């Protein structure tokens, strides 16, 4: 098991190098005057040229990439072009907020969608099934930012239950969590439903039912445990898209997380900042996937033996 974890962690290195290469070159391919964006429309030409020179932007792409990689190998993500502060500090000061949002959003989605998925599966093709699925699908069908604005109008402006933005206290968390969570409800519900359907039809469940075991017990004790594996996978995969989805949610709710920072950095063509965010995102994503795989081992002992 330890060996497997270490091997997986080592696999992160090529992924990080690949990601940095990809993002670096896409960013340099796209036209954009970084110094001018930082200094604004009113800054005179000498200032723009001086800043471009100071940031080393006049050097060829390969040299800039090499310089960046040398830093990266020493664990240095570089300084943000815009603020001049270390990217690592910039991202890390915002990361807890994004993680908090993603965690509660995911919890919200799980708590709603697994029961809906189970109910749907046990009553396949019934009206309850249809309504539950439509409800879950509405989540994915509703554009994130639109739902966020609608929630602000209803609960912040008219009912005044929750603040419209910021990140202080649990009240500020409620609307962004709902907005973000609904987006990944559909996939979890769908997977729970289909994987439950599959398990329910298997012989041992039929046997248990035939033996007269209470059908609720069958579902929750026997079927659910076996149906969970694909659900855990999809939750892991969703976590990545949740971090991505956080970008728009954060913008709507003025949530001071990495998503907002990433969008602003892309707009400013602040390459080190964008790279820093993406590298930290991808490491995070890979670690979540690793955790998912380790969880498998605990849910399904058959898999555990494979890791030895």
């Amino acid at each position, binding site marked *: 098991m330890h060996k497997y974890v270490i091997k997986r962690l080592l696999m992160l290195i090529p992924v990080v190098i690949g990601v940095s290469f990809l993002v670096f070159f896409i960013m340099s391919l*796209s*036209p*954009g*005057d*970084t110094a*001018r*964006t*930082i*200094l*604004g*429309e*009113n*800054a*005179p*030409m*000498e*200032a*723009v040229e*001086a800043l471009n*020179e100071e940031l080393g932007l006049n050097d060829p792409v390969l040299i800039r990439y090499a310089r960046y990689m040398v830093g990266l190998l020493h664990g240095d993500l570089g300084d943000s072009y815009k*603020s*001049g*502060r270390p990217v690592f500090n*910039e991202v890390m*000061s*915002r990361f807890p907020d994004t993680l908090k949002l993603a965690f*509660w959003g995911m919890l*919200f989605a799980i*708590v*709603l969608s697994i029961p809906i998925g189970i109910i749907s599966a046990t009553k396949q093709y019934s009206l309850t099934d249809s309504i539950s699925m439509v409800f879950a699908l509405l989540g994915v069908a509703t554009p994130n930012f639109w739902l966020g*604005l*609608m929630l*602000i*109008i*209803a*609960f*912040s*402006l*008219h009912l005044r239950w929750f*603040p*419209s*933005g*910021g990140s*202080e*206290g*649990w009240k*500020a*968390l409620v609307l962004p969590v*709902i907005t973000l*969570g609904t987006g990944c409800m559909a996939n979890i519900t769908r997977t729970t439903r289909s994987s439950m359907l599959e398990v329910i039809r298997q012989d041992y469940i039929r046997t248990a039912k035939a033996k007269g075991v209470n059908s609720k017990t069958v579902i929750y004790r026997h079927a659910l445990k076996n149906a969970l594996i694909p659900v855990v996978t999809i939750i892991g995969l969703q976590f990545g898209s949740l971090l991505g989805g956080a970008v728009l949610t954060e*913008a*709507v*709710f*003025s949530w*001071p*997380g990495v998503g*907002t*920072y990433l969008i602003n950095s892309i*707009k*400013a063509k602040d390459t080190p900042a964008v790279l820093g965010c993406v590298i930290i995102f991808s490491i995070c994503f890979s670690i979540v996937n690793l955790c998912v795989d380790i969880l498998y081992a605990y849910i399904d002992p058959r898999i555990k033996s494979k890791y030895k």
Partner: protein
Amino acid sequence: MKKNLLCVFLAGIMSASLLTGCGSSSNTTGGSTTDSKSAITIGVKSDLTSLNPHNHNDTISAYATRHIYSNLIRLTEDNEFVGDLADTWEYTDDTTVAFTLKEGVKFQNGSVLTSEDVKYSLESQKESAKVGHLVSMIDSVEVVDDTHFIIHLNTPSNALISSLSHSGCAILNKAYVEEQLAAGKKIEDAPIGTGPYKFAEWVPGASFTLEKNEDYFDADRKAQNDKLIFKAIPEESARTIALENGELDMLIDVSTNDAGKIRDNSSLALDEYASTRIEYFTMNEEKAPFDDVRVRQAINHAIKKDDIVVATINNEGSAFDNYIGEAAIGYYDTITKYDYNPEKAKELLAEAGVDNGFTFTCFVSNDERARSATIVQANLAELGITMNIEQMEASTFYERTGNGEHDACMAGWVANAEPDNTYRPLFTSANAGAGGNRSFYKNPEVDALVDDAATNRDKDAVAKDYQTVLETISADAIWTPLYSPRGMVARNKDLQGFTPSPIMMHNFYNLHY
């Protein structure tokens, strides 16, 4: 009715989620409201970039640094330059200015301001890529004694005094900064200045807080509140809602679509002022057919500015014909105006030989300008001209228009306290392209006038120079000026003491309930 139904529907989702999901997180208590009215919360559209005056050049960072630090000179609300840290100053000749500092001004760490601090601040500022250009005319600072120093210029310049009032020319504490740098820290980690506020806290991406400086030197400009909290709220409607909910005491950057709502709200007030911001449509004079002055004039006659004012800024401003904001220093009403007259436009196009129409692309960089462009597109379509719109990120826009890849583009400008900072980048040949002159207009006569105005110490001659420039460029129709939005700041109606600044360099020290 529709809205109510929506609320009920959303409330349904909400209560379901409260029952199942988020009830568990209620262990902490929310405390976004301020307990005493002596802390003023101000909503802004984005976070600051740096607390180091030498490391930023943007309005929002300046809200922080202008209150933490002081300058030698400051600009009053009546567009006059008066001494801030400087007591008096005098031009001994064209390139030598003698200054006297106020006595006994103290930094927030207790040390006394001296001429050495000024010398250190201005000379290290020259190294800054972001604000070094402001002091490029300064050759050296000569310290005479603790309160007397002389600034030597490398060339005669009218811009010195206005530059010294810019947030980039803040005066730092030499001993403290050198100590910080030696300890491997940065100026922005713990900024110390002579301003009315001390730095308290910065939560990146969210907010920054300033605290009253009890030992501030200027009794007339002492802080009337204990704390200023600036909150960054990027989404327009969310900003207004936060003000309406009482989460904010004041809101800068009021959305034009919400202004009416704020006016109608009996517990809020909207301060309106003439800003120096203008928006314009500019054609690339190096590309046919815009190299023909008649085509540019025709376009000026073809665009219905009143429609743009309605559709783009919801009537919160006015159609504009000039090339520099009305509230700006250096504004003169001596221009050729073009009324909306499609018939005239057609005649001019026929004279220029393009009466069969043509196709070109207009670059825009944000939603507001995209709306203006959509109106221009419809106006020009009536003359048989096809205008394609290409919206892009600001950084891409700067690069591509700087290279002259555009046929035309939408742009805007906020004039600051120094007219040279508007005339030079926008209208001179040397700045064609990336420097700011996106019309690529090149006229040696205009260049010479702008140069003269920058150095001539005769005020009347300077005024004449600028007037002639405006007359020339408006006759040449190098842009189509579109509109000037109204400056707006919204606040709780009981909040007193706000005086807006036309160049958006607002002061907040006087705010109180």
